[in-house]
């Protein structure tokens, strides 16, 4: 291995996609090694999801915005400010395609092709959803979206929201709304309470976070908010907009709650289309029922020059995203023949092991409700983009014999809409597997397609920068 003072003949061209916790720490690590990476993010401001910033003319302090995580948020924002002049930062820039070590981006309608030696994909995650009757009604939002409204815009999604779904974000968002003075109608978790108990040995590796989750729950209950586990959501009611929610309670009996908004989500799913376009092989993860791009413990994919970090590689949360960003950058440096601090790598890998155990705990405590997804009624809209029902998917499986999701997509258009399957894909795969009587793994995964998000019709080509 090269000595610390030695650098290879040519400085590798490095690009980081994503300026969240993973991307910022990756860029910082590359800068420390003497590189000048490009940092691409489609957002106007850096910070990613958890440390999302408010517009410049807002004045709430970090403590209000990020609560217990204020210090970490400040540290991440400061870290990015500190390297701002040492990176080629491209905000408002979408990475929309990738071919043979050239990344294709577009900034305000101007396209560019960027060749690279090392690409670190730190693209984060979005909410994992399944359809519930009425979920397209105005007033229904994703859980993450409910938090974005509060954090980035100082707004609540309604006067009396219900939060529904499962995962740590469910309790966090409900608590943040409560603290902001909003009249939270209920917190409805599809996971049975017993699941949390079973997950305790794994969750206990991060006692602080475990305690925090309990505190959120206690604060909500103390404030008189209905907090229920093991619910089966039946319908988001409303004529033209949300007016209530019906669910089946764990103890038996159907209940109705009046509300004018619903924030729903079932933990998170990775944004991994670019890894797919890069040709990274994917693995099926039984614990979550999701496919993820293959990578070693440091984030090195089997495709030369492609590294994966943060929630976009595997949903492990914010702290792991910072560790993963550093590890991926160190792996890229090592592969380019630049020395990496071996002691640092060892320490980061150790931290990752603990964080991964906690992730397993979360997967046990907040399981994806596969049965709920499979049993969605025929007349419920599965694809929000083009208003296509679950029945159409079943028909595609039964009458047309679609064996896997890509064929089903071609025949039914489910997954072909503007969101490219981000919001219907997981449930669509369950419905297809259910109709075929086969496993989720056997129906495969939707292949990523360029552009990964819709491009403006006015996009023009610029010279390669």
């Amino acid at each position, binding site marked *: 291995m090269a000595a610390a003072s030695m650098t290879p003949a040519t400085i590798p061209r490095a690009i980081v996609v994503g300026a969240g916790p993973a991307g910022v720490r990756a860029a910082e690590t590359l800068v420390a090694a003497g590189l000048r990476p490009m940092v691409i993010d489609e957002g106007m401001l850096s910070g990613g999801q958890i440390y999302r910033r408010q517009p410049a003319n807002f004045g709430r302090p970090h403590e209000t915005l990020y609560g217990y995580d204020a210090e970490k948020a400040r540290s991440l924002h400061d870290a990015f400010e500190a390297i701002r002049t040492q990176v080629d930062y491209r905000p408002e820039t979408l990475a929309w395609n990738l071919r043979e070590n050239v990344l294709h981006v577009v900034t305000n309608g101007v396209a560019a092709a960027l060749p690279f030696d090392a690409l670190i994909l730190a693209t984060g995650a979005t909410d994992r959803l399944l359809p519930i009757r009425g979920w397209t009604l105005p007033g229904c939002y*994703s859980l993450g979206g409910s938090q974005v409204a509060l954090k980035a815009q100082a707004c609540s999604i309604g006067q009396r929201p219900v939060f529904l779904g499962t995962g740590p974000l469910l309790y966090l968002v409900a608590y943040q709304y409560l603290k902001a003075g909003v009249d939270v109608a209920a917190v409805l978790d599809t996971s049975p309470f017993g699941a949390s108990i079973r997950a305790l040995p794994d969750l206990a590796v991060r006692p602080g976070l475990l305690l925090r989750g309990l505190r959120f729950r206690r604060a909500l209950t103390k404030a008189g908010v209905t907090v229920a586990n093991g619910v089966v959501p039946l319908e988001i009611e409303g004529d033209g907009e949300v007016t209530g929610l019906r669910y089946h309670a764990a103890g038996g009996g159907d209940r109705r709650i009046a509300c004018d908004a619903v924030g729903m989500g079932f933990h998170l799913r990775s944004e991994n289309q670019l890894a797919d376009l890069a040709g990274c092989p994917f693995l099926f993860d039984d614990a979550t029922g999701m496919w993820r791009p293959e990578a070693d413990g440091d984030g090195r994919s089997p495709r030369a020059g492609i590294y994966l970090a943060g929630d976009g590689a595997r949903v492990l949360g914010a702290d792991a995203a910072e560790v993963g960003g550093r590890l991926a950058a160190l792996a890229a440096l090592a592969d380019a023949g630049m020395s990496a601090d071996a002691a640092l790598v060892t320490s980061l890998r150790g931290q990752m092991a603990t964080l991964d155990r906690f992730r397993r705990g979360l997967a046990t405590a907040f399981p994806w409700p596969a049965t709920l997804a499979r049993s969605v009624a025929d007349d419920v809209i599965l694809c929000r983009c083009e208003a296509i029902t679950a029945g159409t998917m079943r028909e595609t499986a039964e009458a047309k014999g679609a064996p896997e999701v890509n064929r089903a997509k071609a025949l039914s258009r489910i997954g072909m809409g503007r969101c490219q399957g981000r919001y219907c894909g997981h449930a669509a795969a369950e419905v297809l597997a259910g109709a075929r009587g086969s496993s989720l793994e056997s129906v495969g995964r939707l292949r990523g397609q360029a552009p990964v998000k*819709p491009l403006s019709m006015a996009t023009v080509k610029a010279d390669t920068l």
Partner: protein
Amino acid sequence: MAEVPVRGRFHRIAETDRPPVSITVDGAAVTAREGDSLLVAVLASGRTLRQSEFGDGSRAGFCLMGACQDCWMWQADGGRLRACTTPVRAGMDLLTRPVDETLWPLPA
């Protein structure tokens, strides 16, 4: 019958002293605040953002992070804007349904 004032879907809970910005939605004047996303600008006083092109009613956005594409609005001059990631600008002239149905290019 006197018109009942329509309350907005979103509620501002802080940061309310930002300068006002005037826009038009379906021909009606709407006052937003500097720093609002277009989505918030419209929903702070309105109930919906758009009509679904597939005949299943109105929509008011969903993910708020540029992923679901369920908040695109139309501009009077023909363009389209994703409301959750577009900052509001004074004078925007927006429509909740397309002037010309062919403007949205459906993927083949």
